Protein backbone atom coordinates (compact mmCIF):
# COMPACT_ATOMS: atom_id res chain seq x y z
CA UNK A 1 0.00 0.00 0.00
CA UNK A 2 1.52 3.24 -1.10
CA UNK A 3 1.00 6.40 0.85
CA UNK A 4 -1.50 7.83 -1.66
CA UNK A 5 -3.78 4.80 -1.33
CA UNK A 6 -5.28 6.20 1.86
CA UNK A 7 -7.05 8.83 -0.27
CA UNK A 8 -8.99 6.19 -2.19
CA UNK A 9 -12.50 6.15 -0.80
CA UNK A 10 -14.92 3.31 -1.38
CA UNK A 11 -18.20 4.54 -2.77
CA UNK A 12 -21.13 2.20 -3.33
CA UNK A 13 -22.62 2.38 -6.81
CA UNK A 14 -26.06 0.77 -6.96
CA UNK A 15 -27.94 -0.05 -10.15
CA UNK A 16 -31.43 1.32 -9.92
CA UNK A 17 -34.30 0.45 -12.23
CA UNK A 18 -36.82 2.91 -13.36
CA UNK A 19 -39.36 1.86 -10.76
CA UNK A 20 -41.00 3.93 -8.05
CA UNK A 21 -39.18 4.36 -4.75
CA UNK A 22 -35.99 2.47 -5.55
CA UNK A 23 -34.10 5.03 -3.48
CA UNK A 24 -36.43 4.30 -0.57
CA UNK A 25 -35.69 0.59 -0.89
CA UNK A 26 -31.94 1.23 -0.77
CA UNK A 27 -32.29 3.63 2.15
CA UNK A 28 -34.37 1.08 4.04
CA UNK A 29 -31.75 -1.67 3.71
CA UNK A 30 -29.09 0.72 5.00
CA UNK A 31 -31.32 1.84 7.88
CA UNK A 32 -32.05 -1.75 8.91
CA UNK A 33 -28.30 -2.47 8.89
CA UNK A 34 -27.53 0.55 11.00
CA UNK A 35 -25.39 2.02 8.23
CA UNK A 36 -24.77 5.75 8.26
CA UNK A 37 -24.99 7.59 4.96
CA UNK A 38 -22.36 10.30 4.64
CA UNK A 39 -23.21 11.55 1.19
CA UNK A 40 -25.03 10.42 -1.93
CA UNK A 41 -26.12 11.34 -5.42
CA UNK A 42 -28.38 9.87 -8.10
CA UNK A 43 -27.39 9.71 -11.75
CA UNK A 44 -30.05 9.30 -14.42
CA UNK A 45 -29.39 6.91 -17.28
CA UNK A 46 -31.79 5.98 -20.06
CA UNK A 47 -34.60 4.26 -18.21
CA UNK A 48 -32.48 3.44 -15.17
CA UNK A 49 -30.19 5.19 -12.73
CA UNK A 50 -27.13 4.74 -10.58
CA UNK A 51 -27.36 5.58 -6.90
CA UNK A 52 -23.98 6.56 -5.47
CA UNK A 53 -23.57 6.42 -1.72
CA UNK A 54 -20.78 7.06 0.76
CA UNK A 55 -21.32 5.12 3.96
CA UNK A 56 -19.43 4.44 7.16
CA UNK A 57 -19.20 0.65 6.64
CA UNK A 58 -19.09 0.00 2.88
CA UNK A 59 -18.41 -3.80 3.02
CA UNK A 60 -21.33 -4.43 5.35
CA UNK A 61 -23.57 -2.18 3.28
CA UNK A 62 -22.64 -3.97 0.07
CA UNK A 63 -23.32 -7.40 1.55
CA UNK A 64 -26.69 -6.31 2.88
CA UNK A 65 -27.75 -4.74 -0.41
CA UNK A 66 -26.52 -7.68 -2.47
CA UNK A 67 -28.50 -10.03 -0.27
CA UNK A 68 -31.59 -7.99 -1.04
CA UNK A 69 -30.99 -8.45 -4.77
CA UNK A 70 -29.37 -5.13 -5.58
CA UNK A 71 -26.49 -4.90 -8.01
CA UNK A 72 -23.73 -3.12 -6.13
CA UNK A 73 -20.22 -2.19 -7.06
CA UNK A 74 -17.43 -0.37 -5.29
CA UNK A 75 -16.12 2.68 -7.07
CA UNK A 76 -13.08 4.53 -5.86
CA UNK A 77 -13.58 8.25 -5.47
CA UNK A 78 -11.64 11.13 -3.96
CA UNK A 79 -12.89 13.55 -1.34
CA UNK A 80 -11.60 17.11 -1.52
CA UNK A 81 -12.06 19.40 1.43
CA UNK A 82 -13.31 22.84 0.51
CA UNK A 83 -14.05 25.94 2.46
CA UNK A 84 -17.69 26.48 3.40
CA UNK A 85 -18.01 30.00 2.01
CA UNK A 86 -18.76 31.72 -1.30
CA UNK A 87 -15.97 30.94 -3.74
CA UNK A 88 -15.05 27.72 -1.95
CA UNK A 89 -15.65 25.58 -5.03
CA UNK A 90 -14.01 28.10 -7.34
CA UNK A 91 -10.80 27.98 -5.29
CA UNK A 92 -10.68 24.23 -5.90
CA UNK A 93 -11.51 24.23 -9.57
CA UNK A 94 -8.68 26.61 -10.19
CA UNK A 95 -6.33 23.84 -9.03
CA UNK A 96 -8.13 21.01 -10.79
CA UNK A 97 -7.61 21.96 -14.43
CA UNK A 98 -5.25 19.05 -15.03
CA UNK A 99 -7.65 16.48 -13.66
CA UNK A 100 -10.22 14.71 -15.84
CA UNK A 101 -13.41 14.38 -13.77
CA UNK A 102 -16.12 11.87 -14.68
CA UNK A 103 -18.58 13.12 -12.12
CA UNK A 104 -18.76 14.80 -8.75
CA UNK A 105 -21.12 15.81 -6.00
CA UNK A 106 -20.75 17.82 -2.83
CA UNK A 107 -22.13 18.10 0.67
CA UNK A 108 -21.55 20.28 3.76
CA UNK A 109 -19.78 18.85 6.73
CA UNK A 110 -19.30 21.87 9.06
CA UNK A 111 -16.96 23.52 9.54
CA UNK A 112 -15.92 22.62 5.98
CA UNK A 113 -17.58 21.24 2.85
CA UNK A 114 -16.65 18.17 0.78
CA UNK A 115 -16.47 17.65 -2.96
CA UNK A 116 -16.55 14.01 -4.02
CA UNK A 117 -15.06 13.34 -7.44
CA UNK A 118 -14.61 10.33 -9.64
CA UNK A 119 -11.55 10.84 -11.83
CA UNK A 120 -10.44 8.97 -14.89
CA UNK A 121 -7.02 7.99 -13.56
CA UNK A 122 -7.11 7.90 -9.78
CA UNK A 123 -3.34 7.59 -9.25
CA UNK A 124 -2.60 10.61 -11.42
CA UNK A 125 -5.60 12.43 -9.97
CA UNK A 126 -4.30 12.13 -6.44
CA UNK A 127 -0.87 13.31 -7.55
CA UNK A 128 -2.21 16.31 -9.45
CA UNK A 129 -4.66 17.39 -6.77
CA UNK A 130 -2.02 17.22 -4.04
CA UNK A 131 0.43 19.06 -6.26
CA UNK A 132 -2.21 21.75 -6.70
CA UNK A 133 -2.14 22.20 -2.94
CA UNK A 134 -5.60 20.75 -2.32
CA UNK A 135 -6.49 18.94 0.86
CA UNK A 136 -7.70 15.39 0.28
CA UNK A 137 -9.57 13.61 3.05
CA UNK A 138 -8.23 10.12 3.77
CA UNK A 139 -10.49 7.11 4.07
CA UNK A 140 -10.29 6.97 7.85
CA UNK A 141 -12.49 10.07 7.82
CA UNK A 142 -15.27 7.91 6.38
CA UNK A 143 -14.81 4.31 7.27
Amino acid sequence: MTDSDKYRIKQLSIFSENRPNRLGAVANVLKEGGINILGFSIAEGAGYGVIRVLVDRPEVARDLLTKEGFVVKFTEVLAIQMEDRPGGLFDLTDHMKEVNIEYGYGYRNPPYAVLIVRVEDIEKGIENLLKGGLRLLDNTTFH
Partner: protein
Amino acid sequence: MTSDAIQGGFDLISWNPNIEEMPRAQLDRLQLKLLKLQTHKMYDFSPFYHERMRAAGVMPSDIKTLADVKKLPFMTKKDLRDGYPDKLFMCDRSELLRYHASSGTTGKPTIVGYTRNDLENWSESLARAMTSVGLGKDDVIQVSNTYGLFSGGLGFHYAIEKMGAVVVPASTGNTERQIELIRDLEVTAIASTPSYLMYLGEVAAKMGIDIKKDTKLRIGLLGAEPWSDRMRDRIYETMGVKGINCYGASELSGPLFSECSEQQGIHIWGDLALVEIVDPDTGEPLGPGERGEMVITMLQKEALPIVRYRMGDITTLNDEVCACGRTHPRINRIQGRVDDMIIIRGINVFPSQVEHSLMQHPELGNEFQLVVDRKGHMDNMLVRVELKPEAFTDNIIELNALRERISNRLKGTLNVSAKVELVQPGTLPRFEGKAKRVVDRREY
Protein backbone atom coordinates in the same frame (compact mmCIF):
# COMPACT_ATOMS: atom_id res chain seq x y z
CA MET B 1 -60.76 -11.51 -68.90
CA THR B 2 -62.81 -8.92 -67.08
CA SER B 3 -66.46 -9.73 -67.20
CA ASP B 4 -69.50 -7.68 -66.52
CA ALA B 5 -71.68 -10.71 -66.94
CA ILE B 6 -74.31 -11.46 -64.41
CA GLN B 7 -74.23 -15.18 -63.89
CA GLY B 8 -76.24 -17.80 -62.12
CA GLY B 9 -78.74 -15.33 -60.78
CA PHE B 10 -76.14 -13.49 -58.69
CA ASP B 11 -75.56 -9.82 -59.19
CA LEU B 12 -71.89 -10.47 -59.39
CA ILE B 13 -68.93 -8.88 -61.03
CA SER B 14 -65.98 -11.22 -60.99
CA TRP B 15 -62.49 -10.78 -62.31
CA ASN B 16 -62.42 -14.37 -63.53
CA PRO B 17 -65.99 -15.68 -63.40
CA ASN B 18 -65.21 -19.04 -65.01
CA ILE B 19 -62.94 -19.87 -62.12
CA GLU B 20 -64.54 -17.94 -59.27
CA GLU B 21 -68.04 -19.26 -59.87
CA MET B 22 -67.04 -22.74 -60.96
CA PRO B 23 -69.39 -25.39 -59.53
CA ARG B 24 -67.90 -26.99 -56.49
CA ALA B 25 -67.56 -30.50 -57.90
CA GLN B 26 -65.71 -29.11 -60.88
CA LEU B 27 -63.45 -27.03 -58.62
CA ASP B 28 -62.65 -30.18 -56.62
CA ARG B 29 -61.66 -31.98 -59.82
CA LEU B 30 -59.48 -29.05 -60.87
CA GLN B 31 -57.81 -29.00 -57.46
CA LEU B 32 -57.10 -32.72 -57.59
CA LYS B 33 -55.63 -32.42 -61.05
CA LEU B 34 -53.39 -29.55 -59.98
CA LEU B 35 -52.38 -31.32 -56.77
CA LYS B 36 -51.36 -34.45 -58.67
CA LEU B 37 -49.37 -32.38 -61.12
CA GLN B 38 -47.64 -30.40 -58.40
CA THR B 39 -46.81 -33.56 -56.45
CA HIS B 40 -45.24 -35.12 -59.53
CA LYS B 41 -43.24 -31.96 -60.20
CA MET B 42 -41.98 -31.76 -56.65
CA TYR B 43 -41.03 -35.43 -56.59
CA ASP B 44 -39.08 -35.02 -59.82
CA PHE B 45 -37.58 -31.56 -59.46
CA SER B 46 -37.30 -30.77 -55.75
CA PRO B 47 -34.49 -32.80 -54.15
CA PHE B 48 -35.67 -31.50 -50.78
CA TYR B 49 -39.25 -32.65 -51.14
CA HIS B 50 -38.28 -35.84 -52.98
CA GLU B 51 -36.34 -36.79 -49.87
CA ARG B 52 -39.27 -35.85 -47.65
CA MET B 53 -41.69 -37.96 -49.65
CA ARG B 54 -39.38 -40.96 -49.65
CA ALA B 55 -38.91 -40.65 -45.89
CA ALA B 56 -42.69 -40.56 -45.49
CA GLY B 57 -43.12 -43.48 -47.89
CA VAL B 58 -45.35 -41.53 -50.28
CA MET B 59 -45.25 -41.68 -54.05
CA PRO B 60 -46.96 -39.17 -56.38
CA SER B 61 -49.24 -42.02 -57.49
CA ASP B 62 -50.59 -42.26 -53.92
CA ILE B 63 -52.51 -39.03 -54.48
CA LYS B 64 -55.82 -40.34 -55.81
CA THR B 65 -58.31 -38.06 -54.10
CA LEU B 66 -58.14 -34.58 -52.59
CA ALA B 67 -58.22 -36.10 -49.11
CA ASP B 68 -54.98 -37.90 -49.95
CA VAL B 69 -53.21 -34.59 -49.50
CA LYS B 70 -52.87 -35.59 -45.87
CA LYS B 71 -50.39 -38.29 -46.90
CA LEU B 72 -47.92 -35.60 -47.95
CA PRO B 73 -45.37 -34.44 -45.37
CA PHE B 74 -45.68 -30.97 -43.85
CA MET B 75 -43.38 -28.07 -44.61
CA THR B 76 -42.49 -25.47 -42.01
CA LYS B 77 -40.79 -22.12 -41.79
CA LYS B 78 -37.75 -23.99 -40.54
CA ASP B 79 -37.48 -25.82 -43.86
CA LEU B 80 -37.34 -22.51 -45.68
CA ARG B 81 -34.77 -21.20 -43.23
CA ASP B 82 -32.60 -24.30 -43.54
CA GLY B 83 -32.87 -24.01 -47.31
CA TYR B 84 -31.49 -20.47 -47.33
CA PRO B 85 -31.18 -18.88 -49.78
CA ASP B 86 -32.59 -20.95 -52.65
CA LYS B 87 -32.03 -24.65 -51.90
CA LEU B 88 -35.78 -25.30 -52.05
CA PHE B 89 -36.33 -23.68 -55.42
CA MET B 90 -37.30 -26.08 -58.17
CA CYS B 91 -36.77 -23.94 -61.24
CA ASP B 92 -33.71 -22.78 -63.13
CA ARG B 93 -32.30 -19.40 -62.27
CA SER B 94 -33.00 -18.36 -65.85
CA GLU B 95 -36.71 -18.73 -65.09
CA LEU B 96 -36.58 -16.47 -62.03
CA LEU B 97 -37.82 -12.91 -62.36
CA ARG B 98 -37.76 -11.61 -58.81
CA TYR B 99 -36.84 -12.20 -55.18
CA HIS B 100 -38.61 -11.03 -52.07
CA ALA B 101 -37.53 -11.68 -48.52
CA SER B 102 -39.19 -11.94 -45.16
CA SER B 103 -37.52 -11.54 -41.80
CA GLY B 104 -36.33 -14.83 -40.37
CA THR B 105 -36.46 -16.09 -36.83
CA THR B 106 -32.72 -16.18 -36.26
CA GLY B 107 -31.51 -13.26 -38.28
CA LYS B 108 -31.46 -14.89 -41.71
CA PRO B 109 -34.35 -13.89 -43.94
CA THR B 110 -36.49 -16.29 -45.92
CA ILE B 111 -35.97 -15.77 -49.64
CA VAL B 112 -38.90 -16.22 -51.98
CA GLY B 113 -38.28 -16.51 -55.71
CA TYR B 114 -40.82 -15.94 -58.48
CA THR B 115 -41.08 -17.16 -62.05
CA ARG B 116 -43.18 -15.28 -64.58
CA ASN B 117 -46.14 -17.56 -63.82
CA ASP B 118 -45.67 -17.09 -60.08
CA LEU B 119 -45.88 -13.31 -60.49
CA GLU B 120 -48.81 -13.70 -62.86
CA ASN B 121 -50.76 -15.90 -60.42
CA TRP B 122 -50.00 -13.56 -57.55
CA SER B 123 -51.44 -10.59 -59.45
CA GLU B 124 -54.35 -12.71 -60.64
CA SER B 125 -55.20 -13.70 -57.07
CA LEU B 126 -55.21 -10.12 -55.81
CA ALA B 127 -57.04 -8.82 -58.89
CA ARG B 128 -59.86 -11.29 -58.13
CA ALA B 129 -59.81 -10.21 -54.49
CA MET B 130 -59.97 -6.51 -55.27
CA THR B 131 -62.69 -6.99 -57.87
CA SER B 132 -64.69 -8.97 -55.32
CA VAL B 133 -64.97 -5.89 -53.09
CA GLY B 134 -66.17 -3.72 -55.94
CA LEU B 135 -62.92 -2.21 -57.14
CA GLY B 136 -62.20 -1.88 -60.84
CA LYS B 137 -60.73 0.17 -63.67
CA ASP B 138 -62.15 3.45 -62.44
CA ASP B 139 -60.52 3.23 -59.06
CA VAL B 140 -57.40 4.96 -57.81
CA ILE B 141 -55.61 2.76 -55.29
CA GLN B 142 -52.86 4.00 -53.03
CA VAL B 143 -50.37 1.36 -51.91
CA SER B 144 -49.13 2.40 -48.49
CA ASN B 145 -47.38 -0.90 -47.82
CA THR B 146 -43.60 -0.89 -47.87
CA TYR B 147 -42.08 -1.34 -51.30
CA GLY B 148 -38.87 -3.35 -51.57
CA LEU B 149 -37.95 -6.76 -50.25
CA PHE B 150 -41.20 -6.89 -48.30
CA SER B 151 -43.82 -8.35 -50.62
CA GLY B 152 -46.72 -6.15 -49.49
CA GLY B 153 -45.92 -3.15 -51.67
CA LEU B 154 -45.04 -4.57 -55.07
CA GLY B 155 -47.62 -7.36 -54.72
CA PHE B 156 -50.51 -4.92 -54.67
CA HIS B 157 -48.79 -2.65 -57.15
CA TYR B 158 -48.73 -5.11 -60.03
CA ALA B 159 -52.13 -6.56 -59.21
CA ILE B 160 -53.67 -3.09 -59.40
CA GLU B 161 -52.01 -2.50 -62.75
CA LYS B 162 -53.24 -5.87 -63.98
CA MET B 163 -56.75 -5.00 -62.91
CA GLY B 164 -56.47 -1.73 -64.78
CA ALA B 165 -56.97 0.67 -61.87
CA VAL B 166 -54.59 3.55 -61.22
CA VAL B 167 -51.90 2.82 -58.67
CA VAL B 168 -50.36 5.43 -56.36
CA PRO B 169 -47.12 3.81 -55.14
CA ALA B 170 -46.89 5.80 -51.92
CA SER B 171 -45.10 3.15 -49.86
CA THR B 172 -44.71 4.04 -46.17
CA GLY B 173 -43.82 7.30 -44.48
CA ASN B 174 -44.58 10.99 -45.00
CA THR B 175 -48.18 10.62 -43.89
CA GLU B 176 -49.14 14.24 -44.55
CA ARG B 177 -48.16 13.93 -48.19
CA GLN B 178 -50.01 10.61 -48.39
CA ILE B 179 -53.15 12.38 -47.20
CA GLU B 180 -52.73 15.17 -49.74
CA LEU B 181 -52.34 12.57 -52.49
CA ILE B 182 -55.49 10.79 -51.34
CA ARG B 183 -57.40 14.05 -51.55
CA ASP B 184 -55.84 15.50 -54.70
CA LEU B 185 -55.70 12.32 -56.79
CA GLU B 186 -59.17 11.26 -55.65
CA VAL B 187 -57.88 7.99 -54.25
CA THR B 188 -60.73 5.52 -53.67
CA ALA B 189 -58.90 2.67 -51.91
CA ILE B 190 -55.78 2.20 -49.85
CA ALA B 191 -53.69 -0.91 -49.15
CA SER B 192 -52.04 -0.69 -45.74
CA THR B 193 -51.99 -2.12 -42.27
CA PRO B 194 -55.11 -1.34 -40.23
CA SER B 195 -53.06 0.54 -37.64
CA TYR B 196 -51.49 2.73 -40.30
CA LEU B 197 -54.90 3.62 -41.70
CA MET B 198 -56.07 4.60 -38.21
CA TYR B 199 -52.95 6.72 -37.80
CA LEU B 200 -53.50 8.31 -41.19
CA GLY B 201 -57.02 9.24 -40.12
CA GLU B 202 -55.71 10.99 -37.03
CA VAL B 203 -53.07 12.93 -38.94
CA ALA B 204 -55.71 13.97 -41.47
CA ALA B 205 -57.93 15.27 -38.67
CA LYS B 206 -55.01 17.32 -37.33
CA MET B 207 -54.49 18.74 -40.83
CA GLY B 208 -58.13 19.75 -40.91
CA ILE B 209 -58.98 17.15 -43.55
CA ASP B 210 -62.09 15.06 -43.02
CA ILE B 211 -61.49 11.75 -44.83
CA LYS B 212 -65.26 11.20 -45.03
CA LYS B 213 -66.13 14.56 -46.60
CA ASP B 214 -62.95 15.82 -48.20
CA THR B 215 -61.76 12.64 -49.94
CA LYS B 216 -63.15 9.81 -52.03
CA LEU B 217 -61.48 7.08 -49.97
CA ARG B 218 -63.99 4.30 -49.30
CA ILE B 219 -62.12 0.99 -49.15
CA GLY B 220 -59.15 -0.12 -47.08
CA LEU B 221 -57.36 -3.32 -48.13
CA LEU B 222 -56.01 -4.15 -44.72
CA GLY B 223 -53.76 -6.89 -43.45
CA ALA B 224 -50.32 -7.95 -42.29
CA GLU B 225 -51.26 -7.63 -38.64
CA PRO B 226 -54.02 -8.85 -36.34
CA TRP B 227 -57.08 -6.66 -36.04
CA SER B 228 -60.67 -6.96 -34.96
CA ASP B 229 -64.20 -6.24 -36.07
CA ARG B 230 -64.22 -3.49 -33.46
CA MET B 231 -61.33 -1.80 -35.20
CA ARG B 232 -63.13 -2.25 -38.49
CA ASP B 233 -66.19 -0.49 -37.06
CA ARG B 234 -64.08 2.32 -35.72
CA ILE B 235 -62.40 2.83 -39.10
CA TYR B 236 -65.80 2.98 -40.75
CA GLU B 237 -67.29 5.36 -38.20
CA THR B 238 -64.40 7.81 -38.13
CA MET B 239 -63.32 7.71 -41.77
CA GLY B 240 -66.16 6.19 -43.74
CA VAL B 241 -63.74 3.58 -45.03
CA LYS B 242 -64.83 -0.03 -45.36
CA GLY B 243 -62.00 -2.19 -44.00
CA ILE B 244 -61.41 -5.32 -46.07
CA ASN B 245 -59.58 -8.15 -44.34
CA CYS B 246 -56.70 -9.41 -46.49
CA TYR B 247 -54.54 -12.48 -46.03
CA GLY B 248 -51.23 -13.70 -47.33
CA ALA B 249 -47.64 -14.41 -46.41
CA SER B 250 -44.41 -13.89 -48.27
CA GLU B 251 -43.84 -17.66 -48.42
CA LEU B 252 -47.09 -18.00 -50.35
CA SER B 253 -46.01 -15.07 -52.60
CA GLY B 254 -47.31 -12.13 -50.58
CA PRO B 255 -50.78 -10.72 -49.94
CA LEU B 256 -53.09 -12.97 -51.97
CA PHE B 257 -56.60 -13.24 -50.62
CA SER B 258 -59.33 -11.06 -49.18
CA GLU B 259 -62.94 -10.98 -48.18
CA CYS B 260 -65.54 -10.21 -50.80
CA SER B 261 -68.20 -7.52 -50.37
CA GLU B 262 -70.17 -9.91 -48.17
CA GLN B 263 -67.37 -9.78 -45.60
CA GLN B 264 -68.13 -13.28 -44.38
CA GLY B 265 -64.64 -14.76 -44.52
CA ILE B 266 -61.64 -14.62 -46.80
CA HIS B 267 -61.93 -16.47 -50.12
CA ILE B 268 -58.98 -18.78 -50.74
CA TRP B 269 -58.88 -19.31 -54.50
CA GLY B 270 -59.04 -23.05 -54.89
CA ASP B 271 -57.16 -23.22 -58.18
CA LEU B 272 -54.18 -21.52 -56.55
CA ALA B 273 -54.23 -22.87 -53.03
CA LEU B 274 -55.55 -25.88 -51.18
CA VAL B 275 -56.34 -24.99 -47.61
CA GLU B 276 -56.63 -27.43 -44.71
CA ILE B 277 -57.21 -26.96 -41.02
CA VAL B 278 -55.29 -29.37 -38.80
CA ASP B 279 -54.91 -30.02 -35.12
CA PRO B 280 -51.76 -28.04 -34.26
CA ASP B 281 -50.53 -30.74 -31.88
CA THR B 282 -51.23 -33.92 -33.84
CA GLY B 283 -51.29 -32.57 -37.39
CA GLU B 284 -54.54 -34.49 -37.98
CA PRO B 285 -57.01 -32.85 -40.41
CA LEU B 286 -60.03 -31.13 -38.86
CA GLY B 287 -63.42 -30.63 -40.47
CA PRO B 288 -65.17 -27.45 -41.63
CA GLY B 289 -65.95 -25.16 -38.70
CA GLU B 290 -63.37 -26.79 -36.46
CA ARG B 291 -60.76 -24.49 -35.06
CA GLY B 292 -57.15 -25.34 -35.81
CA GLU B 293 -53.97 -24.44 -37.60
CA MET B 294 -54.18 -23.42 -41.24
CA VAL B 295 -52.10 -25.49 -43.64
CA ILE B 296 -51.70 -24.33 -47.22
CA THR B 297 -50.57 -26.07 -50.38
CA MET B 298 -49.87 -23.76 -53.29
CA LEU B 299 -51.07 -25.62 -56.35
CA GLN B 300 -49.29 -23.76 -59.10
CA LYS B 301 -46.09 -22.36 -57.64
CA GLU B 302 -42.99 -22.90 -59.76
CA ALA B 303 -39.99 -21.31 -58.04
CA LEU B 304 -40.50 -21.93 -54.34
CA PRO B 305 -42.92 -24.82 -53.89
CA ILE B 306 -45.16 -24.71 -50.84
CA VAL B 307 -46.76 -28.01 -49.86
CA ARG B 308 -48.78 -28.47 -46.67
CA TYR B 309 -47.08 -25.45 -45.21
CA ARG B 310 -47.85 -24.87 -41.54
CA MET B 311 -48.94 -21.24 -41.42
CA GLY B 312 -49.03 -21.08 -37.64
CA ASP B 313 -52.31 -19.14 -37.88
CA ILE B 314 -55.36 -20.41 -36.01
CA THR B 315 -58.71 -20.16 -37.78
CA THR B 316 -61.71 -22.09 -39.04
CA LEU B 317 -62.68 -23.09 -42.58
CA ASN B 318 -66.04 -22.40 -44.16
CA ASP B 319 -66.76 -24.68 -47.12
CA GLU B 320 -70.21 -23.35 -48.03
CA VAL B 321 -70.83 -21.39 -51.20
CA CYS B 322 -70.68 -17.68 -50.35
CA ALA B 323 -73.67 -15.36 -50.66
CA CYS B 324 -71.62 -13.53 -53.29
CA GLY B 325 -71.86 -16.62 -55.50
CA ARG B 326 -68.20 -17.55 -55.36
CA THR B 327 -67.71 -21.22 -54.71
CA HIS B 328 -64.21 -21.06 -53.26
CA PRO B 329 -63.74 -21.92 -49.59
CA ARG B 330 -63.34 -19.21 -47.02
CA ILE B 331 -61.32 -18.88 -43.86
CA ASN B 332 -62.53 -16.83 -40.93
CA ARG B 333 -60.61 -14.07 -39.24
CA ILE B 334 -57.29 -15.27 -37.81
CA GLN B 335 -57.90 -16.00 -34.14
CA GLY B 336 -54.36 -16.42 -32.92
CA ARG B 337 -51.01 -18.06 -33.41
CA VAL B 338 -49.73 -21.56 -32.72
CA ASP B 339 -46.36 -20.13 -31.75
CA ASP B 340 -45.77 -16.93 -29.85
CA MET B 341 -45.12 -14.82 -32.92
CA ILE B 342 -46.21 -11.21 -32.61
CA ILE B 343 -46.68 -8.67 -35.35
CA ILE B 344 -45.20 -5.23 -34.79
CA ARG B 345 -46.07 -2.57 -37.38
CA GLY B 346 -46.72 -5.31 -39.92
CA ILE B 347 -43.48 -7.17 -39.26
CA ASN B 348 -43.37 -10.66 -37.78
CA VAL B 349 -41.36 -10.90 -34.61
CA PHE B 350 -40.58 -14.15 -32.84
CA PRO B 351 -39.34 -14.10 -29.24
CA SER B 352 -36.67 -16.58 -30.38
CA GLN B 353 -35.26 -13.88 -32.68
CA VAL B 354 -35.08 -11.45 -29.80
CA GLU B 355 -33.44 -14.08 -27.65
CA HIS B 356 -30.87 -14.84 -30.33
CA SER B 357 -30.00 -11.17 -30.67
CA LEU B 358 -29.76 -10.57 -26.91
CA MET B 359 -27.51 -13.61 -26.49
CA GLN B 360 -24.81 -11.86 -28.50
CA HIS B 361 -24.28 -9.50 -25.57
CA PRO B 362 -22.25 -11.11 -22.77
CA GLU B 363 -23.40 -8.33 -20.43
CA LEU B 364 -26.96 -9.66 -20.37
CA GLY B 365 -28.67 -12.45 -18.47
CA ASN B 366 -30.86 -15.14 -20.03
CA GLU B 367 -34.25 -13.76 -19.07
CA PHE B 368 -36.10 -11.20 -21.10
CA GLN B 369 -39.59 -9.88 -21.66
CA LEU B 370 -41.30 -8.25 -24.65
CA VAL B 371 -43.87 -5.64 -23.81
CA VAL B 372 -45.98 -4.48 -26.73
CA ASP B 373 -48.45 -1.66 -26.67
CA ARG B 374 -50.04 0.72 -29.09
CA LYS B 375 -49.87 4.48 -28.78
CA GLY B 376 -51.90 6.47 -31.26
CA HIS B 377 -52.21 3.34 -33.42
CA MET B 378 -48.47 2.86 -33.63
CA ASP B 379 -47.08 -0.32 -32.13
CA ASN B 380 -44.29 0.06 -29.63
CA MET B 381 -42.09 -2.75 -28.44
CA LEU B 382 -40.12 -2.65 -25.25
CA VAL B 383 -37.49 -5.30 -24.60
CA ARG B 384 -36.78 -5.71 -20.90
CA VAL B 385 -33.59 -7.58 -20.14
CA GLU B 386 -31.54 -8.27 -17.04
CA LEU B 387 -28.12 -6.77 -16.67
CA LYS B 388 -25.54 -9.22 -15.30
CA PRO B 389 -24.11 -7.98 -11.97
CA GLU B 390 -20.54 -8.18 -13.29
CA ALA B 391 -21.48 -6.03 -16.27
CA PHE B 392 -22.79 -3.23 -14.10
CA THR B 393 -20.62 -0.14 -14.15
CA ASP B 394 -20.82 3.13 -12.31
CA ASN B 395 -20.27 4.83 -15.65
CA ILE B 396 -23.59 6.01 -17.07
CA ILE B 397 -22.08 6.69 -20.48
CA GLU B 398 -20.94 3.07 -20.78
CA LEU B 399 -24.34 1.77 -19.68
CA ASN B 400 -26.11 4.00 -22.16
CA ALA B 401 -23.72 2.82 -24.88
CA LEU B 402 -24.52 -0.81 -24.01
CA ARG B 403 -28.22 -0.09 -24.26
CA GLU B 404 -27.63 1.54 -27.63
CA ARG B 405 -25.68 -1.48 -28.89
CA ILE B 406 -28.45 -3.86 -27.79
CA SER B 407 -31.05 -1.69 -29.45
CA ASN B 408 -29.11 -1.44 -32.73
CA ARG B 409 -28.55 -5.17 -32.92
CA LEU B 410 -32.25 -5.84 -32.28
CA LYS B 411 -33.20 -3.42 -35.03
CA GLY B 412 -30.79 -5.18 -37.38
CA THR B 413 -32.28 -8.58 -36.59
CA LEU B 414 -35.96 -7.72 -36.38
CA ASN B 415 -36.21 -4.89 -38.92
CA VAL B 416 -38.29 -3.07 -36.39
CA SER B 417 -37.05 -0.76 -33.68
CA ALA B 418 -37.35 -1.68 -30.03
CA LYS B 419 -36.80 0.25 -26.87
CA VAL B 420 -34.48 -1.51 -24.45
CA GLU B 421 -34.81 -1.42 -20.70
CA LEU B 422 -32.03 -2.78 -18.50
CA VAL B 423 -33.40 -4.27 -15.32
CA GLN B 424 -31.96 -5.68 -12.14
CA PRO B 425 -31.07 -9.38 -12.27
CA GLY B 426 -33.67 -11.69 -10.80
CA THR B 427 -36.57 -9.33 -11.31
CA LEU B 428 -38.06 -10.68 -14.55
CA PRO B 429 -40.53 -13.54 -14.27
CA ARG B 430 -39.08 -17.07 -14.41
CA PHE B 431 -40.95 -19.94 -16.02
CA GLU B 432 -40.87 -23.62 -15.24
CA GLY B 433 -42.71 -24.76 -18.32
CA LYS B 434 -43.07 -22.88 -21.56
CA ALA B 435 -41.79 -19.34 -21.11
CA LYS B 436 -44.30 -16.58 -21.59
CA ARG B 437 -42.08 -13.78 -22.79
CA VAL B 438 -44.65 -11.59 -24.48
CA VAL B 439 -46.87 -9.09 -22.73
CA ASP B 440 -49.19 -7.73 -25.41
CA ARG B 441 -51.16 -4.75 -24.17
CA ARG B 442 -52.59 -3.79 -27.54
CA GLU B 443 -56.32 -3.69 -28.03
CA TYR B 444 -57.39 -5.13 -31.32
